[in-house]
C-alpha cells in the first residue's frame, strides 16, 4: 500500500486567505464548555483549554474519566459548539461557523470513536458506511464505492467484504471500518477518542500500528484521546494531561514521561501498573487519596489541592496558570520535586 491509494486531494486546503503562514494546523485558545445542569448546578466540563497542533503531529490527551477529554474532542470537530474560546483550523476560526459554512471544512477534520460497533450503523453495509461522507461531499456512487474498496484495503480489510454488515466483523475489524470512514474525505486532522480502549489487548496493537502507519503515509495530524498512558506515550509527539477540565501539564512526550513536573502527572504515571512483576515490587508508588472531584463543584484555587501532598495555603486560594517549566508548560505553584 502506498500514498497513491490515499485520498487524491489530501493536500487541498480550505480557504486561508489573509492568515499567518506560520499558523499551526490547529490553534485552540481558552476553549470552555459549560453544560447547563438539568436539576444540578452548571457543569464546566472544559475550562480554558489552549494548545497548538502542527500538521502531521500527534497530541495525546490523557486524564481520568470525566476530566473533559471527550468534550474537548467533540468541540474540535464541532460536534459541540463551545461556550467560549476559539478553535482555529488552518487559520480559520471554526468554533462559531454555521453548519452550512462548516460543511466544506468537515472533510478536513474527522473523528474516530471508542466503541467501534455502536458508532457504525448496523443497517448499513460497509460500502455505504465508508462512502457516505463522500456522497455528502458530492461524489458519484460509482466513485464512492471504488474509493471505499481502496480504503478498506488501506486499513487492512478485505475489499471483497464491502457488502457485509458491521455485525459480521470483529471489534478490531469494526474499528478499521471506523478508521476507513474517517479517512474517506482525505482529512488532515483526526480526533480519535479512545480508539483502542474497547478492543482486546491482542487487537489494540494492530490498531495502534495501523494508525501510526496511516499517519506516516498520509501526513495526518491526530488528537489522540485515551486514558491508557502507555498507549498515549507510544503514539504521541506531545502530551497534554487534563484534570477537571483544565490542562495541568503539556509538553514534549519524552520529557513529560521521563520527568513529570505536575504532582498529578507524577501520581498518574506512578499508578499505572507495569507488566513487569520485578519492577512492580521495587517501585515506589504515589497513591492519591480520594476520588477525582466532580466538575459541578470544583475545589477552589488549584482544583487538585484536596488530593495533593504538596499543597500549601496558596494552592487553596489561587489558581495556578500554565507556565513554562523544564521545557514544558505546567500549572502548579510548586512544580517539580
Amino acid at each position, binding site marked *: 500500500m502506498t500514498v497513491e491509494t490515499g485520498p487524491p486531494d489530501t493536500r487541498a486546503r480550505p480557504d486561508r486567505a489573509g492568515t499567518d503562514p506560520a499558523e499551526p494546523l490547529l490553534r485552540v485558545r481558552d476553549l470552555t464548555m459549560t453544560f447547563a445542569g438539568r436539576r444540578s448546578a452548571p457543569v464546566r466540563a472544559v475550562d480554558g483549554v489552549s494548545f497548538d497542533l502542527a500538521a502531521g503531529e500527534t497530541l495525546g490527551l490523557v486524564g*481520568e*474519566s470525566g476530566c473533559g477529554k471527550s468534550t474537548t474532542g467533540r468541540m474540535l470537530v464541532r460536534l459541540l459548539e463551545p461556550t467560549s474560546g476559539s478553535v482555529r483550523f488552518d487559520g480559520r476560526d471554526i468554533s462559531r461557523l454555521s453548519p452550512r459554512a462548516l460543511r466544506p471544512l468537515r472533510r478536513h477534520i474527522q473523528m474516530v470513536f471508542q466503541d467501534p460497533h455502536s458508532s457504525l450503523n448496523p443497517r448499513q453495509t460497509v460500502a455505504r458506511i465508508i462512502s457516505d461522507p463522500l456522497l455528502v461531499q458530492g461524489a458519484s456512487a460509482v466513485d464512492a464505492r471504488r474509493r471505499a474498496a481502496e480504503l478498506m484495503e488501506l486499513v487492512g480489510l478485505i475489499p471483497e467484504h464491502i457488502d457485509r454488515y458491521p455485525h459480521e466483523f*470483529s*471489534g*478490531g*475489524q469494526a474499528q478499521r471500518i471506523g478508521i476507513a470512514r474517517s479517512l474517506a474525505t482525505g482529512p488532515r486532522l483526526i480526533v480519535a477518542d479512545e480508539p483502542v480502549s474497547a478492543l*482486546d*489487548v*491482542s*487487537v*489494540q*496493537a*494492530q490498531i*495502534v*500500528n495501523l494508525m*501510526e*502507519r496511516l499517519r506516516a503515509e498520509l501526513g495526518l495530524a491526530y488528537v489522540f484521546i485515551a*486514558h491508557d*498512558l*502507555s*498507549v498515549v*506515550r*507510544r503514539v504521541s509527539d506531545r502530551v497534554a494531561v487534563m484534570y477537571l477540565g483544565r490542562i495541568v501539564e503539556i509538553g514534549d512526550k519524552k520529557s513529560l*514521561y521521563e520527568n513529570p513536573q505536575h504532582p498529578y502527572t507524577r*501520581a*498518574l*504515571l506512578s*499508578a*499505572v*501498573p*507495569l*507488566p*513487569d*512483576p*520485578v*519492577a*512492580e515490587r521495587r517501585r515506589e*508508588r504515589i*497513591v*492519591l487519596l480520594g*476520588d*477525582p472531584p466532580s466538575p459541578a463543584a470544583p475545589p477552589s484555587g488549584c482544583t487538585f489541592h484536596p488530593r495533593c501532598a504538596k499543597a500549601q495555603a496558596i494552592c487553596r486560594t489561587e489558581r495556578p496558570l500554565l507556565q513554562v517549566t523544564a521545557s514544558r508548560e505546567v500549572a502548579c505553584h510548586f512544580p517539580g520535586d
Partner: protein
Amino acid sequence: MAALPEPPLLQVRDLRVTFTTPRGSVRAVDSLGFTVEAGRTLGIVGESGSGKSVTSLAVMGLHRGAEIGGSIALAGQELTGLTERELSRLRGRKMAMIFQDPLSSLHPYYTVGEQIAEHVRVHFGARRAAARRRAVDMLGEVGIPEPARRAGEYPHQFSGGMRQRVMIAMALVCEPDLLIADEPTTALDVTVQAQILELIARLQQERGLGVVMITHDLGVVARVAHDVLVMYGGRAAEQAGVDELFAGPAHPYSRGLLDSLPRLDDADDEPLRAIPGSPPSLLAPAPGCAFAPRCHVAAAATPQQRRRCATERPEPRPYGAARRSAACHFAGADTAATAQTAQTAQTAQTAQTAQTAPEVSP
C-alpha cells in the same frame, strides 16, 4: 509418613461449562484445572470471551442453565452437585465474589449499611443492632471515611471507587476464605484502581485470603498475582508463577500478549509486535490448537508441525518449574535461543523438563 497434606483452598479439575444456545451448544470452558492456596493470589488473564467470568461463576455456583462438568473442590469439599441451598450457605461464608460494576450487585433501595448487615444476619444469625455495628466496622476497615454516617446512604450516593469498597466490605464481612474478583478495577480510574488493589492486598494479608483476580490487564497481574493462569478460547494456555511467566512465557499466546503491549519504558520508534487476527469463536471450535491461526511459532514451523497444530489439540503439560504448565506442542520454542527452530527448541525443552525444575532463560 506425616498426616495427609491439607487440601488446597480451591482446586478445580477438568472443568467444563457448556451452554445450550439457539445456534447450538457452546463449550465456554473446557479441560480447565487450577489451584488457589490460602494467602495467595491467582491472576486469571485472557481476552474478552476467553472464559474468565464463566469460570468464576461456575466456582461460585452461579450458573443457571449451564451444564457443569469436572470437579470444583473448596477446602476439600466438592461443590459440583450441591443444591442451590447448600451453595448459598457457602457463598458469603466461605467464598465471595466482587464484580466490575458494583452498582449491578447493590440494591438501589436499601442503604449500604442495611445490605451489609443483612449478610451478617443471614450467615451468623446476628441480631439487628450487632449486625449493623459489624457493617459499620467493616465499612471503616475498607477505608470509607465516616463509616457510621455513610452506612445510612444509598449506593448511588457513592463514587465508583467507594462503591467498589462497599462491595469489598460486603464480600468480606462474613469472613470467607476465598475472594473472587472479576475485573474489580476495570471501570475505575487508574489512581482509584491503585487504591483498590492496595486495599485487596492489605485485607488478603490480614486475613490470609485466597484471591482469584480476573483481569485483562497484564500490569494488574504483575502487581498483585503470585500465580498466573493465561486463558485462551476457554482453555488454559499457560500456568506459571508470576516471575517465570513474565521472564519467559512458554506459550506462544502468552509471549504474543506480552510482546504486543505498549510499555511506559519501551523504545517507541518500532511498530508494536501485534498478534494478527482476532480471538476465536466458540461456536465453531477448530479441531486443533485454538491459537493456531494466529500463532507465530506455528507459522514458522515445518508443514508437518503445522499440521499437528491444526489437527491435534494440545493439552496442558508440565513445563520447566514445578507446577508450571503450557498447552502447546512446541512450548517454549520462541523463548529458547533465538536461532533454534521449533523442533530443536522442543527437544531442548523436553530434556530440560526431565531435570529438576530449571528456570527458562528469557
